[in-house]
């Protein structure tokens, strides 16, 4: 861990902070310029029976008559301290609502992620070493197959086969171990496909490299060749894909939770959308953006640790000699 890396990490962290704040502002602005004002709609609901003056008093008390930038500042400063406001429907703190469903979604997402990784690496290993006659081609076709089947279909099939036919889990107990496992499989399969696609392409590339042949010539077993030589360089581009797949994990969990009847962030979002519960939506969207930023930050921070060749400083004055010099740029510069 040298100073160049720390400087790089600090820079990336600062960038991540800026992006998170911008994401929050963007959601806030979009929500406030949307036509229709759910807050006054609620207040004006005849069932609530507020008078015009009471409505004005409530709006003033909540600071909703302030200019948008002031409202934004109030909201953002509250958000940073973990105060996401009150749900408009249940009048309970949004933070509490989210905290109630978060563990279930986190369990599902992390299990799905682990399954996706395991599947992808297994498929990757198979494509390199499984003999052609034993279905290597089939393995190579798996990612496209996984991607082309929507994950709710996978979910329904799993429920039908393992829930109803084999009776491994009871559909009415969505949080039991087996139900969680199969929900994770349903969610993990499409994500494993994305990872596997990139992994296979890179394994193919790396195993053709001279160093793979040299290492084989050194008498390494298949398993060691794969684990020590091929997997690490091939997983570098996969890190980027994984960071992007987290987004899919968030989106996919919504569908999977619905299919398996689990309560989670997905079901919370679904309810909030149908009831226009803006504080909840604002909080969930901002948190999702935050998760995305953090995962990408981790990927960026991990990359130089995985690949020692990554140069951390942008523009150097020194130009490497011939070997590293891109010939295309040199010739292009001269002929253009």
């Amino acid at each position, binding site marked *: 861990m040298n100073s160049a890396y720390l400087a790089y990490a600090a820079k990336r962290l600062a960038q991540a902070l800026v992006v998170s704040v911008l994401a929050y502002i963007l959601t806030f602005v979009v929500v406030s310029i949307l036509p229709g004002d759910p807050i006054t709609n609620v207040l004006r609901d005849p069932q609530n029976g507020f008078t015009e003056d009471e409505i004005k008093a409530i709006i003033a008390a909540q600071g909703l008559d302030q200019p948008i930038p002031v409202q934004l500042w109030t909201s953002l400063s509250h958000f940073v301290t973990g105060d996401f406001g009150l749900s408009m429907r249940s009048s309970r703190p949004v933070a509490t609502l989210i905290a109630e469903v978060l563990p279930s979604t986190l369990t599902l997402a992390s299990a799905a992620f682990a399954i996706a990784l395991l599947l992808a690496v297994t498929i990757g290993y198979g494509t390199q070493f499984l003999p052609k006659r034993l279905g290597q081609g089939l393995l190579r076709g798996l990612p496209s197959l996984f991607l082309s089947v929507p994950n709710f279909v996978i979910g329904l099939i799993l429920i039908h086969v393992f829930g109803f036919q084999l009776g491994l889990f009871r559909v009415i107990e969505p949080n039991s171990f087996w139900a969680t496992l199969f929900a994770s499989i349903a969610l993990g399969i499409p994500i494993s496909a994305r990872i596997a696609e990139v992994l296979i392409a890179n394994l193919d590339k790396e195993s*053709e*490299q*001279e*160093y793979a*042949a*040299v*290492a*084989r*010539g*050194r*008498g*390494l*077993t298949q398993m*060691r060749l794969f684990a*020590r*030589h091929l997997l*690490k*360089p091939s997983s*570098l581009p996969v890190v980027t894909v994984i960071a992007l797949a987290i987004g899919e994990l968030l989106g996919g969990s919504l569908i999977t939770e619905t299919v398996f009847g689990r309560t989670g962030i997905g079901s919370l979002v679904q309810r909030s959308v149908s009831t226009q519960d803006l504080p909840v939506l604002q909080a969930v969207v901002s948190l999702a953006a935050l998760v995305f930023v953090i995962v990408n930050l981790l990927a960026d921070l991990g990359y130089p640790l*995985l*690949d*020692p*060749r990554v140069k951390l400083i942008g523009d*150097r*004055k*020194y*130009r490497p*000699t*011939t*070997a590293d*010099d891109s*010939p*295309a740029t*040199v*010739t292009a*510069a*001269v*002929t*253009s």
Partner: protein
Amino acid sequence: MAPQDGLTANIFKRTAPVPLRPLPLLRVDGLSVSYGPHEVVTNVRFDLGRGESLALIGESGSGKSTIARAVLRLLPSSGRATGRVAFDGQEVLDISERGFRPLRGRAIGFVPQDPANSLNPVRTIGAQADEAAALLDEPDRAIRKQLILETFAEVGLDNPQRIYDSYPHHLSGGMLQRVLIGLAILPRPALLVADEPTSALDVTIQKRILDLLTRLQHDLKISLLLITHDLAIAAERANSLVVLKDGVIQEAGRTAAVFSSPASAYTRKLRADVPALNPDRYAALRDVGLRALKTGEAATPKIAVNAVTKTFTVDGKTLTAASDVSFAVPAGTTHALVGESGSGKTTAVRLLLGLEQPDSGTISVAGEEITGRSPEALRSAWRHLQLVYQNPFTSLDPTWTIEQLVREPLDRFGIGTRKERGERVREALADVGLGEHFLARKPAALSGGQRQRVAIARALVLKPDVIVLDEPTSALDVSVQAGIVEVLLSLQANLDLTYVFVSHDLALVRQLAHTVSVMHRGRIVEHGTVADIFDNPQQPYTRSLLASIPSGVTGAAAAPHRQFRAAADA
């Protein structure tokens, strides 16, 4: 790997009489290799005795590397080898991978061609060295590490601990090749297969690496199977030679016999193509430039580089890439910049092309000042000043046709009508010896030599005065190189071109240059005419460069291993 071959092999083993002479360590008999329907190696046979060395020679495509891969059982999955390969009496071609693995590394070591791509880039050298050390069945990690460090010292690496902790990209090509040789000899194999171990390296490094291989071979009694395209190297380093063309043996025998009196026309051609053995091959063509040199001395030089200095700052350290560099090139002659990697040749080229600005000093080409120009003003200078890059495999856009590639400079400078450009392109291609049928092809359909001809045509098409040749043949075989050299010299004789020729290959410089500057650590240590430098070098550095040219004599031919039988069955 057809089953009946295995059967034959077994019958052979049972019925073969006890050999009177010791069994060769490696016996290759009737070996054929094919990729799909294409047979690239046909019925090759040779023997390599213990402690002996044998060189497989040929151009690229001759199948020499394929034979090495077949012996190592590292053929790509589409490759199929048939015939017999017996290592130490044991048939290895049709045993299972599991059965062969104990031989890998332990008994048969492999030194690959391109050291830069032969170590895993994301793992430390130490981690990879430990894999080789593990073959010694030494359970103690500390002892294994000690063995690795000792081996690194043995192959001439200073500061083994630093090497152990380094990643491959921290080391130079020469150092990496020493590491790879170290890893190959660490488990003390009986056979070392070296596939063009020096073709990616500088001439001086090449000599040191080959010396190292020869020394280790003698010290450790290792048999060496050397693959090379350079007859001079093969003759210096091997006891016997096998000359291949298109996968078929042309000639085989003891080195002295094959080298001094080649029986086949092909071997004679290979011999003629080695620059070191034929310094005056192009004397007639080169004389045109020599006359220009004599008459041009009084006139203004085409290129004048005056006291140019360039420094770079890397990690706070100042690196002087060019220090007080001066040279002048009269019109119609070739000036060679000679030196090892890191000597400042490439910086000199970049300065000359205006891609870098010097800290001090001036450069002028065809009377026009290059230094201190805006990018727009440089563009006009580039009409007279073109570059041919060293690697034709990466310098041509693979998605373009040859016509587009050669025409691009004309398009960019807006020269002539569409029809005139087309004619000019055909003319330039004809100049480099390529017919019109190449116009519609793409680089992938061309050989390395043809690609480099396209690159030259691309430089020629603007009718420049000066062409900078940055190691134009270093990625090519000796025979292909000879063709390119001939094209360059006849172009110069016909079109009165001025060349700046950057190279580490002194033998080549002697064949085609008129004046030479020897660069070392950013300085010109010696300069003069080719005759001055080659016949009467003044500086020790120049002398060491000259000594590294492979000459085809000494080395293994005189090595103390003659008691073993002749390896090749000619």
